[in-house]
């Protein structure tokens, strides 16, 4: 697949923009999700991970968050709706494949994170140095560090399947059809249509599409019953951004620092040319440096 952006990379991206490639997108309609976890199993199956130990905390939540070897997790939330009563909100959590990925921005390792022209953001573990900066750059708490591998892992949007013209494994496994996959434009159309239906037919007046502009839009979108409160769905951030400290570090500080270092070196050299060394005139008792008397 064609590459759009490379993490920690000096200079231009080889071959970027050579040809057009349509943006892919996964659409998750949380209103028709039944929380069956088939997508979790399909993800583990396809990516070759075994099932992880689960916890029980009086809910359907099997583990608190995704793990380095568990990229796809349904987040359950029992929400007391003022009009409708108890609602079991379920959201399939995984990498959002941001158009402006915070992980890629924060990553210092050349080529450890690439963004393809179709929008997939993929980690290249052979180039990953295990610093974990991606974990700080991500506003969705997705990249996870493996203590054994000393590398970071996350959902690949089944880049291997997509590049072969297949849908991601989770999409294939969904029994209710709440998961859709296609071009971003098609998915946007479908999502808006479904949101409109929810608003006009099903009475969810705040229903809408989650495609946050703070990260330039995402290649994984949600249809939510209540798009005004995405936090209800297992802590989906309302207005995700690349953290400002990461941006400050990567842009202004870098230029201030580079300028300072170069200006300092020039200043030191100029001082030597202008004033030269401090030479102390030795008297007769100067002695022999380091030598015996």
């Amino acid at each position, binding site marked *: 697949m064609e590459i759009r952006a490379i993490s*920690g*990379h*000096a200079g231009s991206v080889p071959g970027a923009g050579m040809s057009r490639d349509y943006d892919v997108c996964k659409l998750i309609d949380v209103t028709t999700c039944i929380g069956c976890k088939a997508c979790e199993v399909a993800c583990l199956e396809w990516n070759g991970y075994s099932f992880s130990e689960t916890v029980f905390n009086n809910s359907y939540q099997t583990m608190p*968050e995704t793990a380095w070897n568990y990229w796809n997790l349904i987040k359950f939330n029992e929400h007391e709706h003022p009009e409708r009563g108890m609602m079991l909100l379920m959201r399939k959590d995984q990498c959002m494949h941001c158009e402006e990925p915070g992980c890629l921005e*924060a990553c*210092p*390792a*050349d080529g450890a994170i690439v963004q393809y022209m179709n929008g997939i953001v993929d980690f290249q573990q052979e*180039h*990953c*140095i*295990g*610093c*974990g*900066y991606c*974990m*700080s750059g991500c506003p969705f*708490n997705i990249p*996870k*560090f493996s*203590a054994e591998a*000393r590398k970071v892992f996350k959902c690949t949007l089944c880049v291997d399947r997509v590049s072969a013209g297949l849908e991601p494994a989770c999409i294939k496994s969904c029994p209710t059809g709440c998961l859709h996959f296609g071009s971003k434009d098609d998915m946007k159309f479908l999502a808006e249509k479904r949101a409109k239906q929810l608003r006009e037919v099903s009475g969810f007046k705040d229903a809408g599409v989650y495609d946050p502009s703070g990260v330039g839009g995402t290649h994984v979108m949600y249809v939510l019953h209540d798009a005004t409160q995405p936090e209800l769905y297992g802590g989906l951030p309302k207005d995700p951004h690349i*953290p400002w*400290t*990461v941006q*400050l*570090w990567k842009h202004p*500080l*870098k230029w*201030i*620092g*580079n300028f*300072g*270092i170069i200006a*300092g*070196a020039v200043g*030191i050299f100029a*001082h*030597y040319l202008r*004033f*030269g*060394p*401090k*030479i*102390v*005139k*030795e*008297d007769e*008792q*100067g*002695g*022999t*440096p*380091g*030598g*015996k*008397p």
Partner: protein
Amino acid sequence: MSEQYLLPNGRVLRYSFHERMIHWLAAVSYVYLLLTGLAFWSPWLFWIAVVLGGGTISRELHPWAGLIFVYATFIMLRMWGTQMKETPSDKAWWENVRYYIRNEDAKMPSADRFNPGQKLLFWGFFVNGIVLLLTGVVLWFPNYVPWNLGFLRLISIILHPISALFTIALFMIHVYMGTAMERGAFGSVIRGDVSRAWMEHHHRTFYEKILKESAARK
């Protein structure tokens, strides 16, 4: 003063063997930290990590080198803490620092074992070393910082390079002065001794103390 400063070869002891060892422990670990740190700082310098054994090794060893460096600065605090304390005459030194820069040293107030510039260097490295240590520990173990304490990582990600830049400024001035500018200074941290004239020129207050002590001992 427990050290015998006046050496039998007619020179003056500037730094003891122990002091020199600690200096170079800090120096070698700092240079490694600087090089690997610069590799992570900019994609244009990532090749440094490749030269030093690869990004993964650099990331693994950078924190350990940091511990060595901070250890060395704490030993320095124990060795030099009292000598690095600010004294009333420091203010006059800084007010006249322009003469120092212009090599018009005769117009400068006399300095003790460490002049105020050296004190600034020491405390600058010490304070920034602590900031780098605290933020560095957070960055060392990102997987142990829970998501709801993510702000710690975000603070560290910006404070660590800011603090490092301060030390780079100090480091550049220190290396320049210690090698090219102050002739004789480099030898003081290699062989440990300087000439009497050098000591009198750069650290007259301290030199006079040595002479007084030596006379008292006789």
